[in-house]
């Protein structure tokens, strides 16, 4: 039998469909239609992950999330409505591992579930891992992983990527980047930032020709995307 999931969702027809869909993918889904039953089930049954609707008839999903998080390390995937004023940050602060806005692509649900389960299997993430969607930058082991699989980068390229990622959402000029990594030993003969950036893209982008993570701003420099898949 596959992993057991607890789905806390007040719409029983949607719950049934999610159960069927995830069942096909090898998961076993148990369903609770409100927050208090969800909490009770979570206490009674051994579950590997919780899928939690943000709006429940008897309680705020965020509160249920906080309670589950307080008593266990079961990973939580929150379902919200797109465009909700609730920022994803709030959900993540309350202990959710990820969130998914309705209406979601079924495959997206599967991918996110697998990602949070994989991360949980890998043990508690060290504090010095930067996570952007499917990308993980491990400052401790100086390793970059995409979907959990390590991607090859030289030390200099790692430092460059880290310098960008630590300033995600800010355009960094080439000079500023050079300054930030100037202590790093350079292995390559080519000192140009642009060459290293294209190597980084080859390692971490799904399509290096259409970069979504390290993006060029012509005339200004590079920016590491804050919102990533």
């Amino acid at each position, binding site marked *: 039998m596959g992993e057991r999931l607890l789905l806390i969702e007040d*719409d029983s*027809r*949607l719950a049934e*469909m*999610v159960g*069927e*869909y995830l069942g096909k993918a090898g998961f076993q889904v148990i369903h609770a239609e409100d927050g208090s039953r969800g909490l009770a089930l979570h206490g009674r049954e051994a579950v590997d992950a919780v899928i939690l609707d*943000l*709006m429940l008839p008897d309680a705020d999903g965020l509160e249920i999330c906080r309670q589950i998080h307080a008593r266990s390390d079961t990973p939580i995937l929150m379902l919200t*409505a*797109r*465009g*909700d*004023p609730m*920022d994803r940050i709030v959900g993540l602060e309350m202990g959710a591992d990820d969130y998914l*806005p*309705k*209406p*979601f*692509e*079924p495959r997206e649900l599967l991918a996110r579930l697998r990602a949070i389960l994989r991360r949980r299997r890998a043990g508690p993430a060290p504090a010095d891992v930067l996570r952007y969607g499917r990308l993980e930058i491990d400052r401790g082991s100086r390793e970059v992983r995409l979907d959990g699989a390590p991607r090859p980068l030289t030390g200099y390229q790692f430092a460059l990527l880290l310098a960008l990622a630590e300033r995600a*959402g*800010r*355009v960094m*000029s080439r000079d500023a980047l050079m300054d930030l990594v100037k202590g790093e030993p350079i292995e390559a003969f080519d000192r140009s930032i642009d060459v290293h950036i294209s190597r980084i893209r080859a390692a971490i982008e799904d399509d290096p020709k*259409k*970069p*979504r993570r390290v*993006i*060029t*701003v*012509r*005339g*200004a*420099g590079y*920016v590491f*995307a*804050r*919102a990533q898949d």
Partner: protein
Amino acid sequence: MRRLYLQVYLTIVASLVLVVLTAGLIWHFTSGFRPFGQQFEVAGEIIAELVPPVAAPAQVQQQAIDRLARRFDADLALFGRGNELLAAAGRPLPAPGRIGRNGGWMPTAGGPALSIPLPDGRRLVARLPARQRPGALVVAAFLGAIALVVALGARPVVRRLTGRLERLQRGVESLGAGDLRARVKVEGRDEVARLAQSFNQAAARIESLVEAHKMLLAHASHELRTPLTRIRLGLELVDAPSERKAQLAHDVAELDQLVDEILLASRLEATDALDVRDDIDLAALAAEECARYDDCSVAGTSVAVRGDPMLLRRMIRNLVENARLHGKPPIEVAIARDDGRAMLSVLDRGPVIAADARARLFSSFYRIPGGGGPQGTGLGLALVRQIARRHGGDVAYDPARGNCFTVSLPAK
């Protein structure tokens, strides 16, 4: 702004000053015009008994006048028929002129004097000592003192009356500023109290309406998305040609987009303030949004703005989507700083929009006549304008540069 309490109070003080001035003036000018008549004739007959006859020697007459002056403690002068001075005591007095010839009050340099005609044609002019008839200044000072006391006493009364109006005004202002819980204390039982009561009722009604609207928005978003999710999941579970499925999935996404834009537009209308104010690098945000599209490039400089990243992201996305749907690639997004403002422009190679269609470009559900081709939700540009204005900026169509939209936001 002149404060109401000050206006009312100054009106009272001005009225008091006017009263004092008028009283003083009347006192001053009526002193010479006292009514005369029988009293003076009677007074003359009595005095004639006390004054020696016309034929008496001047010395006797002088003695009589001296005695009378001492008794009355007044200045006295006795004039003959031809207005010649017969006898006088105390400070000198003028002969009665036109005024006082027939008896009555007459003005003199030392104060008003009384002219009394005697039956034999002589006239006695008497001036009472100054202390017996206070001058206009003394009267004014006296009235002034009363006025001062009234003025001081009126101040707290007026202040209290208008203070309630000021509290009401503060309540209205804070309601207008968005504090829907603003209420005022109902004091007293007059019109002001009734006004405060009406204000409270209106405010309560507005609060409950806005609350209902917010609830509706919050629930509508979720309630509409749950069935959409069911449709999307159901699509995955049914057996159908994958092409058909992809088309249906696209329709669901389109419907979701429409729901999203309608709800966002309503939410922006329902509230005035921004929920979030982060420091945002506009160029970085634009770069992230553009990375989602082929044929879309970003150039320019990094400019920081303050705002809601989710909304600003949506603004840029809508502009790029608009260029993609109604323009022609490639799309160029440029960010520049111009005189304290962040300028973001989205330019494509599409034809410039006709001048008569430009005015309504940013209206909800407006479509350019004969536009044809692929259509969006009709809310994209309206949202762009709402979001830009919410951030203290605006958006404009810039035909001089081609098919180009330019957003200007205050730079940090």
